[in-house]
C-alpha cells in the first residue's frame, strides 16, 4: 500500500472530504440544537481552533522531519512520547476514525432507506455501501483525493446554487441574536465543536506522505477555509429558512432545504441532483476513512502489508453500523462521540505531544549548553 507523494491540492481535498460529509447529514441540525442562532459563528470559531491545533502539530512534525528523513506519524509520536504510547495513540486514532465511519455509514444508510430505497431494510444499503467500498478501496489514496477535489467543485457549486435558490425564502432576522444562547454557551460550543473537525486530522496523520512541508500548510489553510465557508453557508441558509426552533428538530436539514427548491412546474424534484452530490461525497469519504484507518493500523501494529486489514475494517464497520437500533440512537451516540470523545482525544493527543516536544527540546538545549561548557 505504498503511496506516492500527496500534493497540496490532494491534501486540501483530504481535509475537505473527511470533514464535509456530515454537513449533508446530521451536523447542521445538531449544531443549531446546541448553539441556536450562533451555530454559524461556532463553526467559524471551531474551524479556527482546529486550524491552530493542526498547524501546531504540523510545525512539530516539520521540525522532526528536518532530521528524520523517511518516517511515519508513528515514528514522530514514538520520538516525543515513547513507542508504547505512540502505538496506543495510533490505535485510539484508528478507533476514532472507525467510529466516525460507522456513524457515517449508519446515517447515510438511514437517509438512503428513507429517501431513495423507501421499501428496503436498513441492512440493504449497508451491504451495498460495504460492497462498493470494497471496490473503491482498491484505488490509490492519491487517485481518491484527486477525485475529491474535482468533486469539491461540483458539490461546492451545488451548495452555492442551493443557497441562491433559497434566497427568496430567507429572513435575515432569524439569524439574530447573533450570540445565540449567550457568550458562555457559544464559547463552550466552539471547544466542543472541534470534534466535528476531528476527521480533518488525517492531514497531519498523513503528513509524512506529503511532497513538501509548505504544501501541507497551504493544504491545511485551503481545506479548512473551504469547509468553513460551506458549513457557514449551509447553516446560515438553514437558520434563515427554518429558524432555530424548526432547524433543531429536523434530522436531515440539507435534504429538507433541497426539497424546498422550486424551479418551475416543468423542472420538479431537483433535490435528486443535490442527493447525487451528497451521496458521492459521503461515499468517497467512507473509502478515504477506510484507507486512513488501515494506514494507522499498519503503523500501530508495525505490520508490513495493510491490504488484509481492509476487508476486516469494512466488515467491522458494516456490522457495527447494524448494531445501532435506530436513527435516534445514532444521533445520541453521534452527539456523545463527536462533541465529547473526539475533542477530548484531540486536545489530549496534541497536549501530550506538545509536552513531549517541549521536554525534548529542553533536553537538547541543555545537552548543547553542556557540550559548549
Amino acid at each position, binding site marked *: 500500500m505504498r503511496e506516492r507523494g500527496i500534493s497540496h491540492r490532494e491534501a486540501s481535498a483530504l481535509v475537505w472530504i473527511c470533514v464535509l460529509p456530515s454537513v449533508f447529514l446530521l451536523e447542521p441540525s445538531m449544531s443549531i440544537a446546541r448553539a441556536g442562532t450562533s451555530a454559524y459563528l461556532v463553526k467559524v470559531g471551531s474551524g479556527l481552533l482546529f486550524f491552530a491545533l493542526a498547524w501546531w502539530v504540523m510545525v512539530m512534525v516539520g521540525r522532526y522531519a528536518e532530521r528524520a528523513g523517511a518516517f511515519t506519524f508513528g515514528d514522530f509520536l514514538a520520538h516525543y512520547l515513547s513507542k508504547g504510547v505512540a502505538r496506543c495513540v495510533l490505535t485510539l486514532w484508528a478507533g476514532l476514525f472507525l467510529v466516525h465511519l460507522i456513524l457515517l455509514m449508519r446515517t447515510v444508510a438511514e437517509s438512503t432507506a428513507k429517501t431513495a430505497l423507501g421499501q428496503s431494510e436498513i441492512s440493504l444499503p449497508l451491504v451495498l455501501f460495504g460492497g462498493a467500498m470494497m471496490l473503491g478501496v482498491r484505488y490509490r489514496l492519491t487517485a481518491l483525493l484527486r477525485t475529491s477535489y474535482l468533486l469539491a467543485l461540483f458539490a461546492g457549486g451545488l451548495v452555492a446554487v442551493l443557497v441562491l435558490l433559497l434566497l427568496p425564502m430567507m429572513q435575515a432576522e432569524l439569524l439574530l*441574536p447573533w450570540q445565540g444562547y449567550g457568550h458562555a454557551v457559544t464559547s463552550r460550543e466552539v471547544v466542543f465543536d472541534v470534534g466535528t473537525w476531528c476527521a480533518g486530522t488525517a492531514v497531519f496523520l498523513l503528513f509524512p506522505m506529503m511532497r513538501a512541508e509548505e504544501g501541507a500548510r497551504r493544504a491545511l489553510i485551503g481545506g479548512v477555509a473551504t469547509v468553513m465557508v460551506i458549513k457557514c453557508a449551509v447553516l446560515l441558509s438553514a437558520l434563515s429558512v*427554518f429558524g432555530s*426552533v424548526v432547524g433543531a428538530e429536523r434530522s436531515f436539514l440539507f435534504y429538507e432545504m433541497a426539497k424546498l427548491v422550486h424551479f418551475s412546474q416543468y423542472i420538479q424534484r431537483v433535490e435528486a441532483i443535490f442527493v447525487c452530490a451528497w451521496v458521492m461525497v459521503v461515499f468517497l469519504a467512507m473509502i478515504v476513512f477506510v484507507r486512513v484507518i488501515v494506514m494507522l493500523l499498519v503503523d500501530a501494529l508495525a505490520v508490513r502489508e495493510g491490504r488484509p486489514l481492509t476487508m476486516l475494517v469494512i466488515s467491522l464497520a458494516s456490522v457495527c453500523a447494524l448494531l445501532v437500533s435506530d436513527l435516534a440512537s445514532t444521533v445520541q451516540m453521534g452527539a456523545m462521540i463527536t462533541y465529547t470523545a473526539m475533542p477530548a482525544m484531540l486536545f489530549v493527543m496534541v497536549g501530550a505531544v506538545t509536552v513531549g516536544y517541549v521536554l525534548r527540546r529542553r533536553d537538547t538545549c541543555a545537552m548543547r549548553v553542556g557540550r559548549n561548557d
Partner: protein
Amino acid sequence: MRCVWVVMISVCLLFTTGCRSNAEIDDYSYAMMIGVDRAEGETSEYVFTYRVILPQAFAGDSKAKDDEKARIVSVKASSLSESYKLVSLAMNRQLNATHIVGFVFSEDVAKEGIYDIVSSMNKSVLFRNSVVLVVSQDSAKTFIEKNKAPFEVFPSRWTESLRDNQMRSGAYFVSDAREFYRRSREPLRAGVLTYAGVTKGSLETKGKPITSASEERGYTVDSLPREGGSEAVAVGSAVFVDWKMVGTLTSAESLGGTMLEKVLRVPLDIVDPRGTGQVYSFGVRTSLPEIDVRIENGRMVADITVSGVAEMMELRYEADEQSGDVYALLEQELGRAVESSVHAYLKKTKEWGADCIGLANHYRKESATLTEWSQRDWQTLYRDADIRVHASIIIKRRGYHRDEMHGGDAFAM
C-alpha cells in the same frame, strides 16, 4: 480482471439505476390536492378528499375530457397517513403524493386546530414542505370540486397563480407548510393562511372596494361582485393563534399585512383629495418596510415606514393635474390609503394577539440571547403594542404628460 470489472459495472447498471423495479408513469396516479373536513357526528375523524390526476388521460392521443383527467376521492380516516392508505386502495394505480401542491382545510377543522395534520405533513417523507395551505369557507370537498379555473386542469397551476396574484393584488397571504409550521412553532405562535371559498356572489353583490375610506372595507369571498370563471376563489386571509383559526381578514386588511412582509406591485385607486370625485388609478410598487421595534416601560413600541413608488395607470392631460401641488396631494392621499390598510390589518390582528408577520422578530437584534427573546410573552406584548405607521409613496414618470413638458395645454401647438 477486466472481465470481472465489466460484469460488476453491468450488474450495477442493471440493478442500481432503477431497471429492476421500474414503473411506467401510467402505472401511477398523482394526488395533486387534499382537502380536510370534519366527519359528521365523529369528533376524532376527518373526511379527506383527494384530487387525483391520471397521467394516461394527458397523453397526446388521449380523447379524455377534462372531467375524466382527474378523479376526486373522499375517505374517512383519523390521520393523514391512514387516508393515504385508503385512497391508495381505492385507486387501481400506485398513488404518488410528492406532487401535491395544495392542502385545503375547512373552516371548522381550522377553528378546532390543525397542528396534528400540519405537523405530520411537515415531518413526512411523502409530502413536500412547499405545499400551499388554504382555509376554505365552505367544506374542503366542495372547494376542491368547484376549483376548476378556466384554461387550467392542474391544481398546481392554481397554486402558482395564487402566488402571482398575491404579488399583484396583496388580497391575501400565501403560506406554505414550512412557513406556517415555523411561525406557529416559534414563540410568536401565530400564522396566517390564504382564505378561500366558493363564491356565491354575482354582479349584483355589493363589494367594498379598497378606495373606500370606511373602516370596514375590502372584499370577502361572499361580497365579490363577479360572474363566470372558477367558482372557487381566494380572497382574504385566515389568521391562526396556537394552531387554531381565530378570524379572517378582508382583501384590504390582507393588503396592509402583506405590504409589511413582501415587495408588492398592486393597483391602488384613490379618490381626488380636492373633492372632484375623480378616481385616480395607480400601480404602486412597495419595498420591504423599515421596522424598528423596541420595548419601552414593558410595552412594545414599533415604528413602521412603508416606502413605495406609484405610477399613474392612465395618461391624463388636464393642465392642473400636472402641477407639483396636485402631485403632492396625490402622494399624500396614496400614503394615507396605505397607512389605512396597514392600520386595518394591525387593528384586527392586535385584538387576536396574532403577530402573523413577525414584528417581534425585529426585536431580536435588541436581545442579548435567544432565551431572553423567546421568554417574552409576545402575544400580550403585541396585543398592547403601540405601533406607528408612516407611508411614503412617490409618484414617478411625471414627464409622460405632455402638458407638464410644455407647461400648458397638452394639445397647444
